[in-house]
C-alpha cells in the first residue's frame, strides 16, 4: 500500500486562505482557570445533592463533636478559672485530723486561732465549730429527721473570709452573735423549705426557737457550710455547750506567700502535735477539676477524631463511586483537552469542597451545641478560635486524603476506556 495516496487529489481543492499549519507550531498548553476549577468541581455536588449532603454530614458530625468538646471544656475551664479569680487562691483551711489512723478525737487547741493570727502574711482568720444540736422546721418534727443538716458556730468574719454572699437577709454581726439567730446554708434553706427571711421565720434549733436572719449563696470554697445552719459563737458556747476550741480555721494570706504560710500553719496551730493538723487549700480542688476536665477532653477528642475518620472514609467511598459513574464525563473532558492533571485536580477539589462544606457545617453545629450547653449551665460561652479554625483545617486534610486516590484513579483512566462506557 502506498504511503500517501492523496497527492493526486490535492489540486482539486480550491484554497482561498493559504493557512499552512506549521509542524513547528508551538502548542499553547491546555489551561483551566481557578474560577472554572471551582465551578467544575462543584458540578458533581450540585447534580447529586442528597449524596453530597450525606457524605458531608459524616464530616460535619466528626467536626461538630470535636468543636463541641473543645468548646465545652474551654467554657468549663474558663468558668472554673473565673471562680478562682473571684474566690482567690489564698485561702487555707486548717482542721484537726491527719496524723495516725483512728485519731478522730483530735481537736485544735483553743489557742489555735489566736496563734494563727500572729503569722505575718495572714490577713484574716475565721473559725467554725461544730455544735452538737439538730435543726428542725418546727418543734413538733421528729428529732431524728435532721435531713443531714449540721449546726455550726462561726465568728462574724466568716462570710468575708470565704468571699461568700447572701442570697437573702444578713450575716450575723457582733450585736447579734449572742442572740438566737441563725443563717442557713443554701442547701439547708432548700431542705427546710425556707426561701426568704421576710416574715421572721423561725426554726427549732437545739431546744429553742432561732430566728432565721439570712440565707447564704452556695460557698464554693467551703461546700460543707452549704448543708449547715450557722449560729453565733457566743450563744453556741453559752447555751448549746459548744467547745471553745475551733473545729476549722480559715486563713486568708498574702497571695504571694501562700506556700510559706502553709508550711508553718500546722506547727503554729498545734505546736505540740503538728501532725494532728490538716492544712488544705480549697482552690486546689477547683484547679484539679479544671485539670481533670482536660483528661475527658482528650478522650472525647479521640472519639471525635474517629467520627471524622469515618466521615473521611465516607467521602472516599462517594468519590470512588463518583469516578466510576462519571467515566464518560472524564472521557469527554479528556476529549475537550483536559490533561490528566486537570482531571485529578477536579476530583480532588470536589472532595475538598465536600469536606470543607462538612467542616463548616460541623464547626457551626459544634459552636451551637457549645452555646446551648454553656447557656444551660449558666456559664459564659467560650468557643475557642483554635477549635473553629482547626475544625475546618482538619476537615480539609481529611478531604484531601480521602480524595487523593479517587482523583488519581480518574486521572489514570484512559480516555478511550472512559468513552466506551454507557
Amino acid at each position, binding site marked *: *500500500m502506498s504511503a*500517501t495516496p492523496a497527492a493526486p487529489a490535492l489540486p482539486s481543492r480550491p484554497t482561498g486562505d493559504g493557512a499552512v*499549519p506549521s*509542524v513547528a507550531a508551538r*502548542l499553547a498548553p491546555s489551561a483551566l482557570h481557578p474560577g472554572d476549577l471551582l465551578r467544575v468541581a462543584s458540578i458533581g455536588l450540585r447534580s447529586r445533592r442528597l449524596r453530597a449532603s450525606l457524605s458531608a454530614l459524616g464530616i460535619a458530625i466528626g467536626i461538630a463533636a470535636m468543636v463541641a468538646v473543645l468548646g465545652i471544656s474551654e467554657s468549663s475551664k474558663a468558668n472554673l478559672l473565673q471562680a478562682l479569680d473571684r474566690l482567690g487562691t489564698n485561702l487555707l483551711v486548717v482542721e484537726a485530723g491527719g496524723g495516725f489512723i483512728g485519731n478522730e478525737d483530735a481537736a485544735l487547741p483553743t489557742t489555735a486561732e489566736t496563734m494563727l493570727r500572729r503569722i505575718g502574711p495572714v490577713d484574716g482568720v475565721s473559725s467554725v465549730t461544730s455544735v452538737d444540736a439538730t435543726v428542725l422546721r418546727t418543734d413538733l418534727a421528729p428529732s431524728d429527721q435532721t435531713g443531714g443538716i449540721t449546726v455550726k458556730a462561726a465568728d462574724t468574719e466568716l462570710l468575708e473570709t470565704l468571699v461568700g454572699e447572701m442570697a437573702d437577709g444578713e450575716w450575723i454581726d457582733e450585736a447579734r452573735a449572742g442572740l438566737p439567730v441563725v443563717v442557713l446554708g443554701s442547701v439547708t434553706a432548700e431542705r427546710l423549705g425556707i426561701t426568704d427571711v421576710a416574715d421572721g421565720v423561725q426554726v427549732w434549733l437545739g431546744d429553742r426557737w432561732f430566728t432565721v436572719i439570712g440565707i447564704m449563696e452556695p460557698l464554693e470554697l467551703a461546700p460543707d457550710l452549704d448543708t449547715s445552719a450557722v449560729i453565733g459563737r457566743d450563744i453556741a458556747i453559752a447555751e448549746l455547750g459548744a467547745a471553745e476550741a475551733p473545729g476549722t480555721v480559715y486563713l486568708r494570706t498574702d497571695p504571694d506567700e501562700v506556700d510559706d504560710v502553709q508550711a508553718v500553719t500546722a506547727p503554729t496551730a498545734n505546736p505540740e502535735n503538728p501532725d494532728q493538723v490538716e492544712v488544705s487549700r480549697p482552690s486546689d480542688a477547683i484547679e484539679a477539676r479544671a485539670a481533670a476536665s482536660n483528661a475527658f477532653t482528650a478522650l472525647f477528642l479521640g472519639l471525635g477524631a474517629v467520627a471524622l475518620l469515618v466521615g473521611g472514609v465516607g467521602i472516599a467511598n462517594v468519590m470512588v463511586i463518583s469516578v466510576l459513574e462519571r467515566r464518560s464525563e472524564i472521557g469527554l473532558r479528556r476529549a475537550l483537552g483536559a490533561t490528566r492533571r486537570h482531571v485529578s485536580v477536579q476530583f480532588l477539589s470536589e472532595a475538598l469542597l465536600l469536606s470543607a462544606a462538612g467542616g463548616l457545617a460541623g464547626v457551626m453545629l459544634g459552636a451551637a451545641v457549645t452555646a446551648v450547653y454553656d447557656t444551660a449551665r449558666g456559664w459564659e460561652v467560650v468557643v475557642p478560635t483554635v477549635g473553629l479554625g482547626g475544625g475546618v483545617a482538619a476537615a480539609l486534610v481529611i478531604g484531601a486524603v480521602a480524595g487523593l486516590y479517587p482523583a488519581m484513579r480518574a486521572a489514570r483512566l484512559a*480516555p478511550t476506556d472512559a468513552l466506551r462506557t454507557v
Partner: protein
Amino acid sequence: MNATDGGGAAPTAPLPCDGVILLRDVVKEYPGDPPTRVLHGVDLVVRRGELLAIVGPSGSGKSTLLHIMGTLDLPTSGDVQIAGHDVARLADRQLSALRSREIGFVFQQFFLLPGMSAADNVADGLLYSGRRLRDRRSRARDALERVGLGHRLDYNTEKLSGGERQRVAIARALVGEPSVVLADEPTGNLDTRSGAALVELLHELNGDGSTIVVITHDHDVAASLRRQVVLRDGLIEADSDHPAQGVGDPGGALPEVAR
C-alpha cells in the same frame, strides 16, 4: 500551493499543504495472547474543508480509527499527523492541548453535562483553551446560532430533544474553531428525520469551511457525504476519492456516491 508532495516515502515528509489528518500505515494492536490487531495498516489523508464518511460494519475498526485520529489513543505503529503535529512526538499533556485547539468531537451519546444550559455546555468546549468565561460564552452563543439553536441558549439540555442535543454537541465541537471535527455515529441515537436534519446541518457547516469526519455504519448517511472511505477488517477497502485504490468491491459496499 505545494503540488509536489505526496511522494512522501520518507517518514518525516511534511503533510500535503491542506491536509489536516495524515495517517500512514497505521497499525493498532491490543495486548493479549495472541494480540488483537484491529487496524492493519491504514493510510488516509483528510484535507482541509472535506466532509468525509468513514463507513463500515461494527468490528471493522471505525471507533479505533476515530480514537487514533482524535489522539485519544496512539497507534501501535505508523505515523499520525494532526494539523501539522506529529502525534508520536507529543507528550500526553501536549496531546491534550492538541485536542483542545485542533479537534472537535461529536459522540453518539452526546455526552452533554446534566444540569447545565445549552450555552454552558457549548462554552465548556473551550474550557481548557485558556479563554476567559465571557469570551467562551459569547463564542458559545455564536456557535449555537450556527447550528440553529439560538433560541435555546438557556435551556437545560435535559429539556431538549435528541436532535437538539446533538446540535448542542456539534456546537460544542465547533466552538473552538478546530481544524477538524470528528463525529462518531452522530445520527446513531436519532430518529430518521432528526438524523437527516443533522446530516443537512453537517453539509451547511462544511459549506462554511469546517472539516468534518463522520464515522458511521449507516450507508445512507455515508452516501450523502462528499467522500466515503469504507473500512473493513481494519483495512481501507474503498475510497471514493481514489477508486483505483480499492482492494475490495466498493460498488457492493457503497450503493451509490451521492451528489
